């Protein structure tokens, strides 16, 4: 009997630890896509296949070009930074896990001046798009996805 319990608990414990590292999430893989959306010639970069249907359901742009795609492996509380066109920078900080979501602080600077700041609870393995800044007869969109490990 005791042997049975020992084996069961040991197997379950090893399974949990080996297969599912959710119990000890330490880092957040943050992917930032910088997209130039415009009404130019129809074009969609292949790197945007996963989100293009969602963007096209909201925006009337005909061209979506992927200007930059950066993946940052960040610890909670660690700042990640990506340079954007037009002397802008995008800063992301995964703060903590909250209700199965990642709390992110996202900040956009333009020549060292904060022009946009937000805090969001991002669903794990999901993404958010922030848009608005004008750039070259179009608009910049920033798709930020997070995956906690």
């Amino acid at each position: 009997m005791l042997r049975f319990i020992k084996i069961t608990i040991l197997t379950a414990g090893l399974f949990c630890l080996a297969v599912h590292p959710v119990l000890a999430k330490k880092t957040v893989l943050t992917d930032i896509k910088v997209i130039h959306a415009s009404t130019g010639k129809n074009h969609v970069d292949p790197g945007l296949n996963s989100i293009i249907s969602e963007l096209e359901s909201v925006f009337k742009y005909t061209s979506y070009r992927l200007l930059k795609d950066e993946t940052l492996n960040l610890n909670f509380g660690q700042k990640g930074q990506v340079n954007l066109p037009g002397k802008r920078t995008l800063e992301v900080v995964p703060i903590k896990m909250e209700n199965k979501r990642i709390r992110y602080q996202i900040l956009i600077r333009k020549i060292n001046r904060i022009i946009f700041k937000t805090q969001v609870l991002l669903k794990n393995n999901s993404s958010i798009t922030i848009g608005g800044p004008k750039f070259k007869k179009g608009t910049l969109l920033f798709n930020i996805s997070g995956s906690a490990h």
Partner: protein
Amino acid sequence: MKNSCGKYSSEEISRFVDNELPTQTYDAIQQHLSTCTECSAMVKNFSSLSDIFSHHAAARVAQMEKGTIAKHLHSTLQKKEKSTFGNHFEFLGKHMVLKVASLAIILMISLFAFQNTIFPPTGPSAIVKSVDTDFASVMIIETQKKKHTIIWFNET
């Protein structure tokens, strides 16, 4: 029916053999038998018949009782075994309750650990907790299909 002696009927002789007569009649017949050869012969016949029946019946009853008891015991045991709770879960062996309890605990722990995977959070891809900007126009949009969250601000 009376035998050729005519004093006692065959029924009375039969009852004498079976010891079913009142004492007085019994004694009278017994006394009569010492002088009547016909009635004595009838008593002998009835006695031998009675012996045969008695022996056969006893043997039969003994056999039947033995078989019936064994059968009854067997069926009772079977019923008892079937009605035993543990018998339905004999694959769990001994200490069945403890084993089931430990499996339940493991299942609960696993569900708790895996709830993020099994039951992912519902709702929009991102919940906007705060927005701070110099620009007046900010829109928060959620797409219909995948509930993808979009924050739009006018940088003018």
